[in-house]
C-alpha cells in the first residue's frame, strides 16, 4: 500500500470500460482485462480457486509437481527414427485390434466416420471381405477396440491404427520413450476422415508397401531426423503444426530426400514418394503428433500435478488426462467445431470434434501457437494477425511455461505457451483453443472443412475433482 501511495498509479481495469477511458484521459497508464463471467459451475470454480491459491503443504506440493511435470515436457528431445508396421512397433498391437482416437468408446457409441474408418481398416486387414461384413463383425464383438493413447500412439481424426499400417516412430532421446503415429494419407477422401472405399484402401496399401518401408530405410540409414529444430524453423515460417504444416513438410522433405534417393532403387517409386510428400501440405502433421506424444508422455504420473498430459476426442467424447491422476480419462461430450467449409458443405454436414491431434496443443503448438500462423487465423473469425496473436496470448493465461526453444517472431520471440494447468483453465474460464479439421458426419465422405473448437470446460472441472481426491 505504501508503494501505491508513493505513486504514480498504474491501473489494471477489470470491468467497466468507462473507468479505463477516464483514467487514460487523466494521463494514467491502464491495461484492460477482457472480462467475462466464468464458464465453470460454482463448485468447480471454488475448487480451482482453492487448488490455485492453496497455501502451505498442499499448495507447495501442486506447485512443485507442476514444475517437475512441465520441466519434463520442455526437456524432451524428439527424433523421428523409423517407420515400421504397427504390428512390429506399437506395444500390445495384435490381430483384430483396432486402435482409435480419443478416450475409450465402444462400437455402439462410435460416430459415423469412426465406424467407417474401422470398417475400412478391417477390410484392408482382411478381417472382413467387405464393409458390410466388417460392420457386422464389429457389432457382433468380433473386433477389439482400444484408444491409441493406451498404446503410446496417436492418430489424427478417426485415428484408426491396425497392425498392418506403417507408423512413424518418434523417440524422445532425453527419456528414451517412443511414440507412434500413422503416415498422413493426404487430403480429400482419406481414412482419417472416415473414407473407406477402394481408392482409400488402395492408397493405404501403397503407403504400407512402398512409402512406409522407404521412409523407414531412409531414416534408419541417417540416424533419424531431430524434430525440435524443424518445429522451431516452422514456427518462424508461419506454421502452427496443426492446420498449417507447409513449411515443416518442406523442411522434413529436405532432410529425407537424399537418404530416400539412396535407399529407393526404383526411380519411379522414388518420384512417387517425393511427389506424395511434396503434394501434401499436412504431411508433417502426423510427425508433429508423434512428437507431441513422445514429449508429453514423460510428464505423466507426477503425483499432485494438475498439468494436462493428453487431450483427445473420439467424435463422441472429449477426454483429458492429468499428470497427477495417472491414466484416468476425464470426459465430457465433444463440441462442434466452428469454421469454414469446402464448397457444397455446411455445418449440417459436420461431424462433432474428433482426433488425437490435440496432442500438439497439449505441448504448446496448434491453436496455442496461432500467433505464429496468421494465415490460419481466418478459421476463427475476422482473421487478422492481431486476432491470431490474441489466441496465443489467452493461452498464456492457462499454461505453466513458455518454451524458449519454440518462439514466435510476431510476439517478439516469446516462447509458445506450454503445459496446460487444469486449475487455471477452470479458474480463468479460458478453454484451450484447438485448431482442427472437420469431418463429414457420414462415413466415407471425408474432410468437409476446418476450424476451431474449444475443449469442454467440464473435462477440466472433473479432472480437478479427481486430482483433489488424490490430494486428500
Amino acid at each position, binding site marked *: *500500500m*505504501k*508503494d*501505491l*501511495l*508513493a*505513486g*504514480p*498509479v*498504474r*491501473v*489494471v*481495469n*477489470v*470491468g*467497466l470500460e*468507462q*473507468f479505463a477511458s*477516464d*483514467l*487514460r484521459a*487523466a494521463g*494514467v*497508464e*491502464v*491495461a*484492460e*482485462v*477482457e*472480462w467475462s*463471467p*466464468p464458464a465453470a459451475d460454482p463448485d468447480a*470454480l471454488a475448487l480451482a*480457486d482453492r487448488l490455485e*491459491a492453496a497455501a502451505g503443504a498442499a499448495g507447495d506440493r501442486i506447485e512443485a509437481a507442476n514444475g517437475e511435470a512441465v520441466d519434463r515436457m520442455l526437456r524432451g528431445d524428439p527424433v523421428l527414427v523409423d517407420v515400421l508396421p504397427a504390428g512390429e512397433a506399437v506395444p500390445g498391437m495384435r490381430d483384430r485390434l483396432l486402435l482409435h482416437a480419443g478416450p475409450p468408446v465402444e462400437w455402439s457409441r462410435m460416430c459415423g466416420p469412426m465406424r467407417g474408418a474401422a470398417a475400412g481398416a478391417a477390410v484392408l486387414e482382411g478381417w472382413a471381405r467387405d464393409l458390410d461384413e466388417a460392420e457386422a463383425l464389429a457389432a457382433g464383438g468380433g473386433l477389439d477396440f482400444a484408444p491409441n493413447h493406451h498404446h503410446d500412439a496417436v492418430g489424427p481424426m478417426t485415428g484408426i491404427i491396425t497392425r498392418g499400417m506403417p507408423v512413424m516412430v518418434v523417440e524422445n532421446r532425453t527419456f528414451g520413450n517412443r511414440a507412434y503415429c500413422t503416415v498422413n494419407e*493426404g*487430403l*480429400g477422401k482419406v481414412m482419417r476422415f472416415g473414407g473407406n472405399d477402394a481408392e482409400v484402401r488402395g492408397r493405404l496399401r501403397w503407403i504400407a508397401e512402398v512409402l512406409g518401408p522407404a521412409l523407414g530405410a531412409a531414416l534408419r540409414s541417417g540416424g533419424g531426423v531431430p524434430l525440435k529444430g524443424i518445429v522451431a524453423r516452422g514456427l518462424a515460417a508461419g506454421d502452427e503444426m496443426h492446420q498449417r504444416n507447409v513449411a515443416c513438410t518442406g523442411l522434413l522433405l529436405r532432410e529425407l530426400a537424399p537418404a530416400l534417393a539412396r535407399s529407393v532403387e526404383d526411380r519411379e517409386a522414388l518420384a512417387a514418394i517425393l511427389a506424395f510428400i511434396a*503434394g501434401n501440405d499436412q504431411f508433417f502433421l502426423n510427425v508433429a503428433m508423434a512428437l507431441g506424444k513422445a514429449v508429453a508422455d514423460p510428464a505423466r504420473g507426477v503425483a499432485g500435478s494438475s498439468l494436462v498430459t493428453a487431450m483427445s476426442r473420439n467424435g463422441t467424447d472429449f477426454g483429458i488426462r492429468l499428470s497427477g491422476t495417472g491414466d484416468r480419462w476425464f470426459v465430457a461430450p465433444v463440441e462442434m467445431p466452428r469454421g*469454414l*467449409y*469446402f*464448397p*457444397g458443405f455446411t455445418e449440417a454436414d459436420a461431424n462433432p470434434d474428433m482426433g488425437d491431434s490435440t496432442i500438439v496443443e497439449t505441448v504448446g503448438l496448434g491453436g496455442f501457437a496461432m500467433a505464429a500462423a496468421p*494465415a490460419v*487465423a*481466418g*478459421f476463427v473469425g*475476422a*482473421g*487478422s494477425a492481431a486476432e491470431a496473436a*490474441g489466441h496465443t*496470448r*489467452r493461452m*498464456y*493465461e492457462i499454461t505453466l511455461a513458455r518454451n524458449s526453444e519454440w518462439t514466435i517472431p510476431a510476439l517478439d520471440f516469446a516462447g509458445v505457451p506450454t503445459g496446460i494447468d487444469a486449475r487455471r483453465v477452470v479458474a*480463468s474460464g*479460458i478453454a484451450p483453443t484447438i485448431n482442427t479439421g472437420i469431418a463429414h458426419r457420414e462415413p466415407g465422405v471425408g474432410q468437409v*472443412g*476446418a476450424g476451431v473448437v474449444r475443449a469442454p470446460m467440464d473435462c477440466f472441472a472433473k479432472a480437478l475433482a479427481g486430482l483433489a481426491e488424490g490430494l486428500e
Partner: protein
Amino acid sequence: MSTGAGAATAGGGRRCDGGGAGAGVVANRVRRGFYLDSVALMRISASLSGSEGVETVSLMIGTPSNVVILDEAGLLTEAGRAAGPDDLVLAVRAESEEALAAALDTAEARLDGAAEGPRSRGAAARFPGIRAACEALPGANLAIVSVPGPFAAREARRALAAGLNVLVFSDNVPVEEEVALKREARARGLALMGPDCGTAIVAGTPLAFANRVRRGAIGVVAASGTGLQELSVLVHRGGGGLSHGIGVGGRDLGDDVGGLGTFMALDALEADPDTRHVVIVSKPPGPRTEAALLARLADCPKPVTLCLVGRDGGALPPNAALVPTLRDAARRALGSGPSGGDPAGPAVGPAVGPAVGPHGKTGAAPPPPLAPSLFAPPRPGRIVGLFSGGTLCAEGQAILRRAGLAVASNAPVPGAAPLPAPSGNPHRPAAPSEPPPLPPAGHVFLDLGADEYTAGRPHPMIEPAMRSGALAGTLADPTVAVVVLDVVLGTGSHPDPAASVVEVLGAAAPDRPPVVASVCGTELDPQDYDAQRRTLERAGVLVAGSNADAVEAAIRIAAPGAGTGLEPEEEERSR
C-alpha cells in the same frame, strides 16, 4: 468485370464461361499464376455465398484434388477443368446470369483487396486476464474491479495474488468475502479498498467516481462514495488539497468487518509524509469497532477529524475531534492543514465558502448566516430531499434530526424513520417518469441511488434524468415547502447533470416550492463547477456551497422555528 480486377491481373489470362448444372447457373473464371492462402480464399467464399441471388461461391487453387471437389459439388465448368495447380478457380452458382457476373466481379475485387489487409485499429489492447495485463504494464500497482458482485471477490483475490492493490467498486459482495479479502490484503501488505467503493483519490489520481482536486496535506479515509467526494471538493474549494482519499466501503467500521480497511488506511496515512491531517468519514461504527478505533486514534501522531454521519458526542482522544457535517470536517482539516494551524484550533477554516456568500455580495464582515442567493421567504411545510449521493442523503437526515425534526428515508440514519417499501414489487424498476412513492406527510429524504431505485436502470449520478419524474411530482405536491437536491460532478458522472434539473423546473407551475441544491464538484471537473452552478441559478435554484448548507437553508425555509441543532457555541462560531 471490374476494372480494378482487370488492372491487377494484367499479364495474366482469364477465361470466362457459363453453363447450367442443376438449379441455377454455374460459371468459372480462372486467374493464372495466382496464389492466395486457402484460408483467405475460404473466407472470401463464405462471405459471398448466400448473398442476393447467389447460391454458392467457391474460390480454390486448381490442384487436382480441388478440381475433384469442385466437380463433385457441381461447380466445375470447362474453364475450371482446364486450370492448373498454379491457377485460381473462381466458381459460382447463382440464380441468374446477372447475379453470376456480379458475384464473380465481387469475388475478384475482394481478391485484389485482400492484400491490403485489415486497417489497424486504434483501440487499446485488451488482455485475457490479470496476469497478462500485469505483464503488459510493468509497474502496475492497482486493480479496479467493477464486475458484477458475485464475481468481484474472485477477481479481487486474483489481483491480490498478482501483487496488486485493489479497489473493489462492485457492490453485493458478501460480508464474509469482504473480511477474507481484507485479511488477505493485510497479510500481503496491500490495500483493499471497498467493496462498494465508489470513489478514491490516490496520489492525485481520481479513481472511479471522483472529483479533480488539488493535492495537499489532508488524508481522508471514507466509507464509500459521495462522502469522500463532498469532503474533497470542499477542501479544494476552501484552498486546500488532498494527499490521498482512501475508500474502505460502507461496512468497514461495522463490527462484522471490524475496521480492517480503516486501520490499514490509517497506518498508511500515518506513515505518509504528505499527510498532515487525517479525516475519517463513515456511518457510526459498530460499538466494538468504535472502541478499537478510538484506541487506535489515540496512538496516531497526527490530528484526526471524525465525521460519523448521524453520531454526536462521545469521548475522544485529545488529537481527535468529532464534527457533525462534512462541511465542518473540511473546515477543521483546513484550519490545521497546509497552513499549519493548530489541530485543536478554530473550526472555521479559510474560505470554505458555503456559509458565506459566494458571489461577492457579502462584502460586509462578519458574513451573514446565509448568502443572499439562499434567501427564500419562509414557507412552512415539509422538506423533501431527492439525493443521488447516499452519504449526502444521510448527512441531510442527520442535520434534520439535530434540528429536532422527524424525517423518514428509504436509507434511514439512526433516529430517522424507515420508509415502507414502495407499494407493489420494490424491485420493479419504475419508468423514469414515474415518481417514487412519497408518504403523504412529514419530511422525506430519498436516496435515489439505493438498490430499489437503480434495479434495471442507471444510477442517478450517471443518468440524472431518472430523478426527473420524482422531482416533477414533488414540485407539484402542495404539501411540499422546499426541495433539496445534490448535483454530483466529477469523472464517471453525467456530463451535464444540471440540465435535467433545469428542464423539470421549466415545466413546473409558477407557485412551485423553492429548490435548494448543492453542487459537488470543482472547477477542474469535466463538467466545471462554475458552469453547472450558473445553469442552476439561472433557473431559479438556490445553490448552497455545501450539502449541509443546502439542508440548513431548507430548514430555515420550511421550519423557521427549528434550530440548526449545532451546539450554541458552534453556531456562534460559524457566524
